Structure formats: structure tokens, C-alpha cells
């Protein structure tokens, strides 16, 4: 190989131009009209964090209500709204926006592009999503009219028909739910198309698909999955609206409509949706674990194959949410098999992360702590998932608190932990300031303890027969003590989140300067200044391996020698 050298763009010593003094309105309008992927990424993440607080408060109210039997902290009607809004918010207004926010910020930087493929579509998508969220929350004051006691959706985030039909939900609750999600769904669809076009068409020179960082790869898979999962939900919601407003009969069981069809349509969306949320979390782990183990990812090709595999298999497992609807025996058996098969690529991923750590030199910085906790928790979540996939046992566990514990293990134990990891990891890049490590460790340990208090003990009332979505329960069932412990855990988590928020604010004001590459990392985003200039890279970068910055730092032993 010849040894000419080319610069990595942006790593050129360019002093960022001093921003001229802006008025508040200029600053505000800059954020409103921006089409910069980095600004939009930050908008997405901040928007999601706000809703995370809202949905977190809803969760706390739920936990207070359930802390003791026969409690009347909230009315049953309000309780139903709380769990519906908590679920809907966390999935649609927190999970997806925050992960797409990270994708927006990180993917173009990681693949050496100057922006997303369609910057204006990007802005449009964000504002659609944002409007969807606001519309959903407007239902608290909207509803029957503007008199302060709105009818927020109260039929569960899965909105099973015919409970959502006009006959059983006469107000506007399901309308807010459906229309808000159709709108934010369009936004999500736009972003997914954008990410696909970006990763396919905007990679810098030398970045072949098999050199693309795993986070970008996972976002490509997730976006592909989003295309075929969000649209079925949109279709089902359009059908529901046709029923409610035009007198259609899709889910009208009195006129021959089928309640089971809604379940199929919802879960054709709903199950892959879990992977839409968890795959980016895998991507985050696949970026952070190697950097803090000081070792390249083990089995890159297997990781890519496993991700694509999970994406495909996840499209054929939805009916495991429906083992109790009376499906035929062969159908049930098929979905048991397909569900258990997901365990194989997932297992491969866990083993690859384990092998990445193995033989490394682990640095216990806050992002890594969150990722290590993720590994343990995701292992448990996967194993309880296998328990649920065994249909006969699922006939017992389905819709019990065991299921609630299981999916919170995935959504909080895996996804939220990795979201926090990602924030600690990329915050220096986006702001130029480090988050405080001391506060970060407080945040981590408190959140870890709170998480396990809540969700470990939540499995037990499920085994003891406690169903989901109940606003209260009888004292003679023996569920009280476990629920009480869970509630304590919920408050510990809440304190941890407050520590985190304090950390963000204090670090923004007087955090340590980050520099370009505080973690001694290897992917392209660390080659630009922190925060990166609007154009990302002064010259288009050229890469020769999966870890361009490793090559740069170790000219004696570059990665491309092994490719």
C-alpha cells in the first residue's frame, strides 16, 4: 500500500467562528426554521426528554395508586387515562423521537456526510411528530369541550376494538389517540425514509456498507423496519376513524366485523415496534462497549447479520401477543417457534458484546456503566421473553404483571439505560461540555437500584395472578407488599432522573471542556470539533476501515490491514 495521506475532514484546525450577538427572537427563529440535522437531533431529544418527564409523572401516579390495596388516590377513569397516556407517550413521544434524534445527530457524522439526504423533509418530519405529541396532550383539555376535564385516551395504548368503537367510547378519546399517532406516524415515516436514503446514498468515500459503524447500520435496519410497521398502524387507525366517523364496520362486531382483526393489525405494528425501539439501543451499546473496553467490536459481520435477522424475524412473531384469543393449534405452534427463534440472533449479539469485553481493559465511565447494566438486564429480559414465548405458560402469564415486568425490563432496563448511556457518551460532542462523572455515577447507581426495586419485584404479583390495567386490587390477594416495594423503587428512579437533569443543567453551564475526542474513540464523529460546525466536515472525509480514527492514532497497526 502506498502511504500518501489524505486529511480527515473537519479535523483540520478550523477555529469556529464566534457567533455574533443574537436577540432572543433571532435565536428562537433559528431553531424553528433550522434544517440542520444536528439542531433537529437536539430538538428531537429535548422534545422526547420533556415527554419522558410527563410520562414519568404519570408512571409515579400509577405507582402511588397501586402502592396499597383498595387505594383511591386517583379515580378509575383517571387511572385508565394515566396508563394509556403513559404507554402511548413513552412509545411514540419518547422512545421513537429520542432514538431518531440520536440517529439524526449521529448518523451523518458517523458516515462522513454533511447533512441528511433530505434536510427539509427532516425538519418537516420533526414538526409533524411534535405536533402529534401536542395534539395527544391537548386531549386533556380538549375532549368533550374546553372545560378542563378532558377525555384523554383511556383504552390502553393497544386500543383494542370494539372498546374504541363509538358504542363503547362515545367521547373523542380514541380520536385524539388515533389522529395524533397518524400525524406523528407520518413524521416517523419521513425520518425513516430520510435515514435510509442517508445511509444508502450519503456515505463518504471508502465507507462501504461493511465499514459503516454499527449504530448507523442499526438505524438503517430500524428505518427499514419502521417503513413496514408504522404504516400498518396508520392503516388500522384510518379504519378505526372510518368506523367512528363514517359509520364503517371494520371492527363493529354487531355487523360482522372482527375484534380479532384489530388485534392482528395492531400487533403486526406493535411487535416490530419493540425492535424499532430496541435495535437503536443495541446500536448504542455496539458503539460504547468497544470504546470503553478499548477493543474493536467482536464479530462485526455477525452483528450486522444478527440485526438484519432480528429485523426480519420480528415481522413474523406478532401473534404471540394473542396466544389467548383462541387461535388454532398449528397457528399457535408456529408463533411459538418464530418467537423462540428471535432468541438466537439476540443471543449472538449478547455473546458478541461479551467477547468484546473479554480481554479488554474496561474503563468504568458513566456511559459504560449504563451499557454494562444493560447487558445484564437485557439478558434477563430475553430469558423472561422465552418464558412468555412458551404458549401454554403464556396462557397463564399473558396480561399479568409478569408481562409488565418483562417489557419494562426491555424498555427501561435495555432501552432507557442505553439512552442514558448515549446521552453521557455524545453530550460532549453536541455541546462541547462533559457531563459530570460524579453526578453521573449518582444517577447511575440510584437509577439501577430504583429500577431493580421496581421491576424485579413486579414479576412476583404477576405469578400470583395480578392482571394488568387494574386500578386497584383486593387486600386478600397478597399482592400488596410487592406493589409497595415497586412504588418505592419508582421514586428512587425519579430521584435519579432529577439528578440527571441537574447534571445536564450544571454541566451545560460549567462543565469541563470536552475537546474533539474526549473518549479516545474511533468513529468519524469524533474527528470534528465539539460541537461540530454546521457543515460537519471542512473537507469530505475518506476512510479505509471501520475505525478511521484508530488508523489515525495507530499508524503502525491500522485496521485496514486486517480487512
Amino acid at each position, binding site marked *: 500500500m502506498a502511504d500518501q495521506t489524505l*486529511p480527515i475532514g473537519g479535523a483540520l484546525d478550523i477555529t469556529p467562528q464566534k457567533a455574533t450577538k443574537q436577540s432572543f427572537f433571532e435565536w428562537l427563529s433559528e431553531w424553528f426554521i433550522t434544517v440542520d440535522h444536528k439542531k433537529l437531533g437536539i430538538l428531537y431529544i429535548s422534545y422526547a426528554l420533556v415527554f419522558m418527564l410527563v410520562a414519568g409523572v404519570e408512571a409515579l401516579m400509577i405507582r402511588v395508586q397501586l402502592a396499597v390495596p383498595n387505594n383511591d388516590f386517583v379515580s378509575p377513569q383517571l387511572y385508565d387515562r394515566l396508563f394509556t397516556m403513559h404507554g402511548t407517550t413513552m412509545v411514540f413521544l419518547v422512545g421513537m423521537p429520542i432514538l431518531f434524534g440520536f440517529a439524526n445527530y449521529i448518523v451523518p457524522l458517523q458516515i462522513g456526510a454533511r447533512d441528511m439526504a433530505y434536510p427539509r423533509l427532516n425538519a418537516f418530519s420533526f414538526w409533524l411528530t411534535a405536533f402529534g405529541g401536542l395534539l395527544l396532550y391537548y386531549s386533556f383539555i380538549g375532549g368533550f369541550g374546553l372545560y378542563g376535564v378532558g377525555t384523554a385516551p383511556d383504552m390502553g395504548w393497544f386500543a383494542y376494538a370494539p372498546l374504541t368503537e363509538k358504542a363503547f367510547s362515545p367521547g373523542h378519546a380514541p380520536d385524539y389517540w388515533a389522529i395524533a399517532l397518524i400525524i406523528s406516524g407520518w413524521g416517523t415515516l419521513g425520518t425513516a425514509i430520510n435515514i435510509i436514503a442517508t445511509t444508502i446514498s450519503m456515505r463518504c468515500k471508502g465507507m462501504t456498507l461493511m465499514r459503516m459503524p454499527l449504530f448507523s447500520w442499526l438505524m438503517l435496519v430500524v428505518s427499514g423496519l419502521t417503513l413496514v410497521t408504522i*404504516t400498518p398502524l396508520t392503516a388500522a387507525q384510518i379504519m378505526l376513524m372510518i368506523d367512528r366517523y363514517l359509520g364503517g364496520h371494520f371492527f363493529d362486531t354487531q355487523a360482522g366485523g372482527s375484534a380479532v382483526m384489530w388485534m392482528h393489525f395492531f400487533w403486526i405494528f406493535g411487535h416490530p415496534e419493540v425492535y424499532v425501539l430496541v435495535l437503536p439501543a443495541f446500536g448504542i451499546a455496539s458503539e460504547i462497549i468497544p470504546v470503553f473496553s478499548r477493543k474493536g467490536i467482536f464479530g462485526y459481520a455477525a452483528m450486522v447479520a444478527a440485526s438484519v435477522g432480528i429485523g426480519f424475524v420480528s415481522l413474523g412473531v406478532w401473534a404471540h401477543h394473542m396466544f389467548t384469543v383462541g387461535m388454532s393449534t398449528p397457528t399457535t405452534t408456529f408463533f411459538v417457534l418464530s418467537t423462540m427463534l428471535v432468541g438466537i440472533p439476540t443471543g449472538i449479539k449478547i455473546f458478541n458484546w461479551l467477547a468484546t469485553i473479554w480481554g479488554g481493559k474496561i474503563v468504568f465511565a458513566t456511559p459504560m456503566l449504563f451499557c454494562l447494566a444493560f447487558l445484564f438486564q437485557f439478558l434477563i429480559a430475553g430469558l423472561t421473553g422465552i418464558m412468555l414465548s412458551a404458549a401454554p405458560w403464556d396462557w397463564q402469564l399473558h396480561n399479568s404483571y409478569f408481562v409488565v415486568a418483562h417489557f419494562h425490563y426491555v424498555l427501561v432496563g435495555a432501552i432507557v439505560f442505553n439512552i442514558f448511556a448515549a446521552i453521557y457518551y455524545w453530550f460532549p460532542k453536541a455541546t462541547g461540555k462533559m457531563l459530570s462523572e460524579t453526578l453521573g455515577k449518582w444517577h447511575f447507581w440510584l437509577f439501577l437500584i430504583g429500577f431493580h426495586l421496581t421491576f424485579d419485584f413486579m414479576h412476583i404479583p404477576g405469578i400470583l395472578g395480578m392482571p394488568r390495567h387494574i386500578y386497584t386490587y383486593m387486600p386478600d390477594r397478597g399482592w400488596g407488599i410487592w406493589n409497595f416495594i415497586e412504588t418505592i423503587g419508582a421514586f428512587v428512579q425519579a430521584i435519579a432522573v432529577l439528578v440527571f437533569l441537574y447534571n445536564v443543567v450544571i454541566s451545560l453551564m460549567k462543565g469541563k471542556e470536552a475537546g474533539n475526542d474526549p473518549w479516545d474513540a474511533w468513529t468519524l464523529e469524533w474527528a470534528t470539533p465539539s460541537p461540530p460546525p454546521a457543515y460537519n466536515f471542512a473537507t469530505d472525509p475518506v476512510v479505509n476501515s471501520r475505525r478511521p480514527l484508530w488508523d489515525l492514532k495507530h499508524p503502525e497497526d491500522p485496521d485496514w490491514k486486517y480487512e
Partner: protein
Amino acid sequence: MATIPVVQNKYEEWRLPSRGASGMISLIIGETALFSMFVLAYIFYIGKSVSGPQPAQVLDIPVFMTICLWSSSLTIWIAERAIEHNRMKQFTFFWGLTIVLGGIFLGGTALEWHRLIYHDGLTISTNLFGTTFYSLVGLHASHVVVGLIMLTAVFIFTLTGHVQQKHAYNIKTLALYWHFVDAVWVVVFTVVYILGR
């Protein structure tokens, strides 16, 4: 000054799939999933209506409008070829013809619906057949409308001379959408007028 060693000119031939095609194909995949749900619902509810009218009693096979829509795929393809080779007159003609054919299809749908509603008394709320029929055919028709709006916009800009050979690529991307709309009609036609009757 950070640098990395590379072989110079190694990536001279660095070519990636185009943005337009990636985006449009993604959109089409998403739309396919959307249509699939309505098609599945239609198939699932064939024969499940508890009251009349049934499809066999009221549906006629719309031969003429179907031929129009499908031949519009051919005319738009000729238009694509024309703009690639800078034959702007031919492009304008065939692009316009595509719009006319699409318009005839929409008109046919309008007449069909008018007959169904006022003559046969079938509305979206009559029975399951009505609900699924108007939803599926209506969803397709709405895509035809969107397609026609975009085609017309291009047509107007062609007449004003803004569309030139250098836009051939964008034209092809847009045409991809129109081909998709035609392809969906193959499925809708088969399901509604052949399977469902």
C-alpha cells in the same frame, strides 16, 4: 493536522445509489405495507357482510378505466425515455397523455361510485362490503389524485419551459411513484373485481 494514510485515487470511482431512488423506493415499501392492510381486510371480509348488497349484485368489471390506467404506465415510460434523449415535444405530449388517462380513470371511479351510491344504495356504512370497498378503492383513488397533482405540476412547468433534460432523473423518480400506483391497481382490481365477486 490529522491525516490518515490512504491509497490515492483508490476511491475515484466512488458511486452510491442515488438519493431520489432510495427515498422513493422506501416510500413505496411503506405504502405497500399500508395497502396490504386494506387488501387483507378486504379479503378477510369477503362474504362476511350480514346484509346486502353483495359485490356480485352491484359490481361491474371496470374494463375501460383499467385499460386507461395501465396504459398510462406505458405513456409515462415513453415520456421518461423522451426526456432522457432531450425530445421535449414528445415528452410533453406523452406526459400530458398520461395525465389525461389518469383523469379518465378517476372519472370512471367517480361514475362507478355515483351509480353505487344513488342507484344501488351502497355507501360506506351500509355493510362490511361497502366499508371495505370504499376504503380500499378510495385509498387507491386518493393516491391517483396525489399522483395527478404532481404530474400536472410537472406538466405546467414543462409548458413554461422550466423542465429540461437535466431533470430527467427527477422525472424518473416521480414516474416510479406513478408506476407504483398502477401496480397497486393490479392488486386492487384482482381482489375487488375478480376474487371478491
